[in-house]
């Protein structure tokens, strides 16, 4: 029992630190990717190739003066970024990061917990993520913050529906809600889920962009209209938490996309690879992180390529295109499964 608790605590700590580390270096990566796409050099002052830039940025965030508006609700003002950070970190609990490590006679799965409703848990955490933005935006007592918060909440609610419907089709195909089970199915025979659910994947990907408030759907913090959006009044590390939570969300979304549609930690042609035991587990985890980093890069690639949507375009896309498409996807999946006798 005690070893179990120690092992779980260590795993939680590692996932926590990796989330923070990846998020920190995603900010550096974003600036480098943006610089590359705009034919610039990007940050290159702190350390070789500027690789200490995230540390410098973090230090700067901590050292800056902290301003809390006097007319705002102080408790809720602090609660906002805390909730944003909390919900961003919570979803990593159910993601399967790798297979089972064998140490001595015991097997230690590299997944904190494989609850049988894993995908719904992720969905619940995502749906709760909107409160950090809403509470922060409202407690700032600033009309631009409030407008940003209202935009964020309506956008997230609208795209959650299409996201949920895209997952329904996937659950029909896999017959399970557990993420561990889904990865196991993609590993033993058959193709990755992207082959069976291309439309579902596309819908899920677009909704992931909207849920993380990334360009082209970054209307909640649209500078040209709303100053800074929901975090206009925030300064110092509280602003840092909001920005950081966004990068953690990108990391977790990339991990969930890889798990659901791209085979999780499974290597392609896994059964032909002459690796066994712990080496295979390590290779799988490395490959999983490779996939995750590719998707993080994809998020950045899109941000620096596609301009921002207009608000009515955003709502039209969500309600009039994505939701009917997702319902069509469910129907098509059902018909195909019936035709192939898989029901």
């Amino acid at each position, binding site marked *: 029992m005690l070893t179990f608790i120690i092992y779980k605590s260590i795993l939680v700590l590692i996932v926590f630190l990796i989330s923070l580390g990846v998020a920190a270096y995603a900010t550096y990566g974003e600036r480098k990717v943006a610089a590359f796409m705009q034919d610039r050099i990007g940050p290159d002052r702190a350390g070789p190739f500027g690789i200490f830039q995230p540390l410098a940025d973090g230090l700067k965030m901590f050292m800056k003066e902290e301003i809390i508006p006097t007319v705002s609700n102080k408790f809720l003002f602090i609660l906002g970024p805390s909730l944003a950070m909390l919900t961003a970190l919570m979803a990593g609990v159910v993601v399967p990061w790798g297979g089972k490590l064998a140490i001595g006679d015991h097997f230690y799965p590299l997944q904190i917990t494989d609850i049988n*409703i894993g995908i*719904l848990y992720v969905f619940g955490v995502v*749906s709760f993520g909107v409160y950090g933005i809403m509470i922060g935006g409202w407690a700032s007592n600033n009309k631009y913050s409030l407008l940003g918060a209202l935009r964020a909440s309506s956008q997230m609610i609208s795209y959650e529906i299409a996201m949920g419907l895209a997952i329904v089709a996937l659950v029909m195909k896999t017959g399970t809600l557990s993420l561990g089970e889904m990865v196991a199915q993609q590993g033993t025979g058959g193709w990755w889920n992207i082959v069976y659910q291309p439309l579902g994947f596309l819908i899920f990907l677009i909704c992931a962009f909207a849920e993380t408030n990334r360009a082209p759907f970054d209307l909640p913090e649209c500078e040209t209209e709303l100053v800074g959006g929901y975090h206009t009044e925030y300064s110092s590390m509280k602003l840092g938490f909001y920005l950081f939570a966004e990068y953690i969300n990108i990391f977790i979304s990339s991990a969930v996309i890889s798990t659901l549609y791209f085979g999780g930690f499974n290597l392609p042609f896994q059964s032909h690879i002459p690796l066994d035991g712990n080496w295979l587990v390590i290779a799988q985890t490395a490959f999983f992180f490779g996939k995750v980093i590719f998707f993080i890069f994809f998020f950045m690639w899109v941000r620096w390529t596609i301009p921002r949507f207009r608000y009515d375009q955003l709502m039209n896309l969500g309600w009039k295109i994505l939701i009917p498409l997702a319902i069509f996807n469910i129907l098509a999946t059902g018909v195909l499964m019936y035709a192939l006798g898989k029901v």
Partner: protein
Amino acid sequence: MLLSQYLFFFLSFVAVLSALMVILDKNPVHSVLFLIVTFFAIAGHYLLLNAQFLAVTHIIVYAGAIMVLFLYVIMMLNLNKEIEPHKKNIPKVAAVISAGVLMMCLVALLKGAEVQMLPAARNSNIGLVDSLGKVLFKEYMLPFEVSSVLFLAAMVGAVFLSKKEIH
């Protein structure tokens, strides 16, 4: 006592306290936030009953969707003033009488109740998504479908009401 019993009392305490705060706090935004805390405590009770699916749907539907809309409306209407509009006396008297009648009904109902386990509650898998789906789509197929038609009708009504009139 078992750990689950401690958790039960803790969750019950949180649920009752935050439910009280919903009606005692004068700021509507605070009330909504306390209501969310109440929903989380109730979801914790579901988890103690091994009904994980119910707990997560409870969070997604109530805390994640409905309360966001509540908060949305309150923020849009700017109801964040801590003053209550002065109400007339007749509604107050009516409210006291109806609440008293409800209280009497509840006491009369619960007076003779005995604490006992339902036969279904002994099956610890009842709340899992497998068994829930089987019960819903086999034994209670018709009520389930009828209630979804009801939801659809309500949705169509809401869309119709909010649509601008076309001349």
